[in-house]
């Protein structure tokens, strides 16, 4: 009995911190989002004392083209591209490293190295690599690769594809790169993939190492080729890890701010703009605090839809095992 109350007491500071800084603050943001606090006047209380306006901040957001549909579509396109490319690349790297190669830890550490950098550093470097006047164009053109790119863009039957990619701002074959609204979002995707694909590789590699050797041996005895073993047996076994990776990368891309802020700051125009940038501009630059709170609530709800079922299933699975 005494031990129980003592353990509760020892946990109390953490519980209090969570109740105030997480749940209390979320409720506060939700409350602020239904007030008319869209002016420079600073708060003198702990709660915003402004008249309630109902869902006005949300409806005005929905009639702002920069938010709806531009930023929402950008964030969705970014999420799909970033998660898909990272997943495929991470899986390929993990399978390559799983072949009992020499220098495995060297390669593994190399692919994971970007994870130790900040998105600000990553953004600074990639902004220069994707700068149309000094960057990748100056590397590819002398090698004759510029001609291949131009050739691809010139293929007639691919032109519908290019125009779709152009309109989604992810056609990185466009030589304007970060200065070209047709390519700017794609440039940010590349930088994000560079930073995060090593994490995916590490997750998959850990998963592959957790599969007992007899599984592979049995398949080999049955005459399956190495490729078949991966396709039919190992990759399906990696499903739970794949779900973890999708949820975690999805969560990262729904709140991403620093990389975009540093690389393109949402531009040119609003071609690579995100809700997180709009929130920053609205609240911290424009004193539209209630509108910023409304954007924050939308971001929270979308990521909760992704994360909460995952957390529940993880914790339930843990209890059962």
């Amino acid at each position: 009995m005494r031990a129980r109350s003592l353990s509760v007491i020892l946990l109390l500071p953490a519980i209090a911190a969570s109740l105030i800084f997480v749940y209390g603050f979320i409720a506060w943001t939700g409350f602020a989002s239904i007030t008319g606090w869209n002016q420079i006047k600073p708060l003198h209380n702990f709660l915003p004392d402004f008249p309630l306006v109902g869902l006005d901040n949300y409806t005005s957001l929905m009639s702002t083209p920069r938010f709806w549909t531009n930023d929402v579509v950008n964030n969705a396109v970014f999420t799909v591209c970033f998660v898909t490319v990272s997943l495929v690349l991470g899986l390929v790297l993990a399978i390559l490293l799983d072949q009992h190669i020499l220098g495995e830890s060297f390669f593994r550490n190399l692919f994971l190295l970007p994870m130790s950098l900040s998105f600000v550093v990553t953004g600074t470097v990639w902004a220069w690599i994707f700068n149309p006047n000094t960057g990748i164009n100056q590397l590819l053109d002398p090698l004759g690769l510029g001609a291949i790119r131009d050739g691809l863009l010139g293929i007639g039957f691919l032109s519908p594809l290019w125009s779709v990619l152009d309109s989604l701002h992810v056609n990185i074959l466009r030589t304007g790169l970060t200065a070209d609204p047709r390519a700017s979002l794609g440039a940010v995707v590349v930088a994000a993939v560079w930073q995060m694909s090593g994490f995916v590789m590490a997750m998959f590699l850990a998963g592959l190492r957790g599969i007992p050797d007899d599984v592979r041996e049995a398949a080999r005895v049955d005459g399956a080729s190495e490729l078949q073993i991966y396709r039919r047996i190992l990759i399906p076994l990696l499903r739970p890890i794949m779900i973890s990776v999708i949820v975690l990368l999805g969560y990262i891309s729904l709140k991403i701010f620093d990389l975009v802020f540093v690389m393109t700051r949402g531009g040119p125009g609003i071609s690579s703009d995100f809700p997180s940038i709009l929130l920053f501009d609205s609240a911290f630059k424009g004193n539209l605090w209630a509108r910023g709170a409304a954007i924050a609530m939308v971001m929270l709800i979308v990521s909760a839809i992704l994360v909460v079922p995952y957390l529940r299933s993880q914790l339930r699975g843990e209890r059962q095992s």
Partner: protein
Amino acid sequence: MSSVRVPGRRRGIRPSRVLIYGLLIAFSIVYLVPVYVLVVGSLKTLREVNTTSIWTLPTGFNLGAWADALQPPLQNSGGIASGLVNSLEMTIPAVVISSVWGSINGYILSKWRFRGSDTLFATLLFGMFIPYQAILIPLVNLLQQLHLYDSLVGLAITHVMYGLPITTLIFRNYYASIPTELVEAAKVDGAGIVAVYRRVILPLSVPGFVVVGIWQFTNIWNEFLFAVTLTSAPSSQPVTVALQNLAGSFAALYNVQMAGALISALPTLVVYILLSRYFIRGLLAGSLKG
């Protein structure tokens, strides 16, 4: 017949091996491109910046851009030296406090579980998966009311509060691997919660603290959203914000920008290179599956 051999024991060079190493080397080169740009760019002079692309090698080993990035010759034009000091002053206490606090939580949540403790854990854990934008505005307001806005103390407190879920999670999973028999034996000897922690758990916690410490250090050092919204004066800005400002005041000078980026990344890079094993462990633990 080759299908039943153990892969590592194959003799001779097989085409598939050549392909695997070829692909790995090709990927390595692509992954190293930004690192090359960082290092090469940071060693160039002003003259070279104006006449060469970011891809060409520098003519010599010139650290002028490093000095400019740290402390530009012009007054009030930024520089990341003070940002480095600020980051260090803010990060170290935040790492220590959030690690120790997480260790206590993790210990109780794994070794002194009570009815409802799993629910409490889930409640705490949710804080790790919110977009921080959802708490940013009230946080700014609270820090302003407490006169902690634009201060390293306010920033450190913020990082402790929002680092708590991950440090608790990693320690909880880590302590779950310590046999309960050890704890039970100490309990039989009459040790309570605090005594078991001091005598049994703490001495076994060093690897846990290394993993959590590296993870927290990397995350807090690299963090930008809190840094840019909770500070406004250069005297309290962490290095990530200083670097971003440097890119503004040296817009055309990639040598200074690359030098600044490289210097600001050095602490986490060094930790990563020396202790990558623990870094990877933290990385995997952060995905819930300790």
